[in-house]
């Protein structure tokens, strides 16, 4: 973080040592981060609409802006003009506090995740641990919202949300642990820097277990974000809209924004932990300041880094949406079974396996590159194989049902 402020202050020309400088520094980061959260919300809600539409052979919003890109902004302005309702039976204080808590716990995550080596606002040495802690703080806000609404739908949604977030926190935490074992640090900056260099240095390819660790993290993070197929807390066909049934207008919009913000945060954490963070995977691009030199080089390098991590995170967000519009919602007992009977034992075994691998890695491997290259090749091969398999299966099922074989893209 010092790096960010010394960097910004050297560009802008002020010293962030005094109290005034501290306040100025907050203005320097808080305002852009607020704007960034809003833009992430706008873009990902638009993406969700477009992706869901195209998966269902529709076109989605088309009227406002090119391909409906400004539709979300128009909706936001509409929500701003909506009447602010508080049910007469509700607990007014908690009802007002809940969206604040939910949004703030998402917002503080944006202050901790790095955008590039220098553009990180608070580079905490407890980085991952802090994010996991703050992420489950959201559950308190959700329970607050559900309880204070004094509405049965809200209460059921809130209880479901609390159970779900709380139980998926365990496999999530254990898969984070596996990465900490490999990296030897909890700081997001250190973890990313351990993955510099070529693509095969990313933690995803570091040892044979990392893919499984990533899958467990990804499933658990879907549940943490209350995304389908784990959208039981908001199950619109059972609970109207779950814990935010009573919220209207801007308060509802805040919940929505926080949800999409949380999606970005879990994706950005996944990118930092497994996909090399802000590194493009091409050493020349990652250390371009060496060849350009001066302030320009540093700025260009950090811009490339920020662009990389944002693009990677949005790709993961798209995968989350793809899963949402592909899989049906699971039941509560299935949700608990998946977490406690599959993910929890598997993540414990994986933690043991990763730490054993780490103990023997030196004699077996020497450098990390050879294993990384093997794993990268295996990943590409298995992706191609799965693509082939999927094509064959869909063709076979179309033939069986005497439907015309649809040639998919890709």
């Amino acid at each position: 973080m010092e790096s960010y402020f010394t960097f910004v202050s050297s560009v802008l020309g002020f010293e962030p040592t005094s109290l005034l400088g501290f306040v100025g520094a907050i203005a320097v980061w808080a305002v852009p981060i607020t704007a960034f959260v809003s833009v992430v919300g706008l873009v990902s809600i638009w993406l969700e609409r477009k992706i869901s539409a195209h998966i269902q052979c529709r076109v989605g919003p088309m009227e406002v802006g090119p391909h409906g890109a400004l539709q979300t902004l128009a909706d936001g302005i509409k929500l701003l003009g909506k009447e602010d309702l508080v049910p007469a039976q509700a607990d007014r204080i908690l009802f007002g506090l809940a969206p604040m808590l939910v949004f703030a716990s998402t917002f503080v995550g944006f202050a901790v995740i790095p955008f590039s080596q220098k553009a990180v606002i608070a580079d905490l040495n407890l980085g991952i641990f802090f994010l996991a802690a703050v992420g489950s703080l959201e559950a308190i806000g959700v329970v607050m919202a559900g309880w204070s609404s004094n509405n049965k739908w809200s209460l059921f949604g809130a209880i479901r949300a609390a159970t779900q977030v709380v139980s998926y926190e365990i496999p999530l935490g254990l898969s984070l642990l596996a990465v900490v074992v490999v990296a030897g640090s909890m700081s997001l900056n250190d973890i990313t820097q351990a993955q510099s260099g070529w693509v095969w240095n990313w933690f995803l390819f570091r040892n044979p277990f990392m893919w499984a660790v990533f899958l467990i993290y990804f499933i658990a993070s879907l549940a943490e974000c209350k995304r389908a197929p784990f959208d039981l807390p908001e199950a619109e066909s059972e609970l109207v809209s779950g814990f935010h049934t009573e919220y209207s207008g801007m308060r509802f919009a805040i919940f929505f924004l926080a949800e999409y913000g949380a999606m970005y945060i879990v994706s950005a954490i996944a990118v930092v932990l497994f996909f090399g963070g802000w590194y493009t995977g091409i050493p020349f691009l990652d250390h371009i300041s060496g060849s350009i030199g001066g302030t320009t080089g540093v700025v260009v390098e950090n811009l490339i880094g920020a662009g990389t991590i944002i693009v990677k995170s949005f790709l993961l967000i798209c995968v989350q949406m793809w899963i949402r519009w592909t899989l049906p919602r699971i039941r509560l007992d299935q949700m608990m079974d998946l977490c406690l009977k599959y993910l929890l034992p598997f993540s414990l075994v994986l933690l043991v396996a990763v730490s054993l691998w780490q103990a023997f890695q030196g004699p077996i491997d020497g450098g990390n590159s050879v294993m990384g290259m093997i794993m990268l090749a295996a990943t590409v091969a298995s992706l191609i194989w799965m693509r082939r398999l999927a094509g064959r299966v869909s063709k076979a099922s179309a033939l069986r049902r005497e439907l015309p074989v649809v040639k998919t893209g890709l």
Partner: protein
Amino acid sequence: MLFQYAHALIGFLFGMLFVALQVFLLVRLLAPRVKEPMKDSTYECGEPPVGDAWVRFDMRFYTMALIFIIFEVEAVFLFPWATVYNDLIAGLRAAGTGNVLFPFIEVFVFILVLGVGLIYVWKKGDMDWVKAMRGQPKQSWPPTEGSTGERDVEKDVA
């Protein structure tokens, strides 16, 4: 380092302030306000709400919370170990004395103890959401062949 945690705290407060400004200031200024008692009633799909929503809920959620506390605390205890694990191994390897697996075995015993707890909870049936009633075999859902999954109407009548 504390300076950075101060920034995280300020981020949290700023997030709350952002919401408060929007909800309590911007919306007050922009949104219409029409007082109407029916509008403020609790939403229950159009019907007048029946009773209070602050009801007791299922004990099974409480069991889940207990399981969560056990395993989450386990994870919290493991984080410091995970951070120094590589250094411990490197140190042992550099010294050339002692077993390289020592840091692993120490924690493996810890995980094993909790693993026994996990197996106990599992066998006890506290991880099953759908539980057997006393004196009845556990119902599986969706119903497998043999059990229809529907209630036996004749038995109910009798």
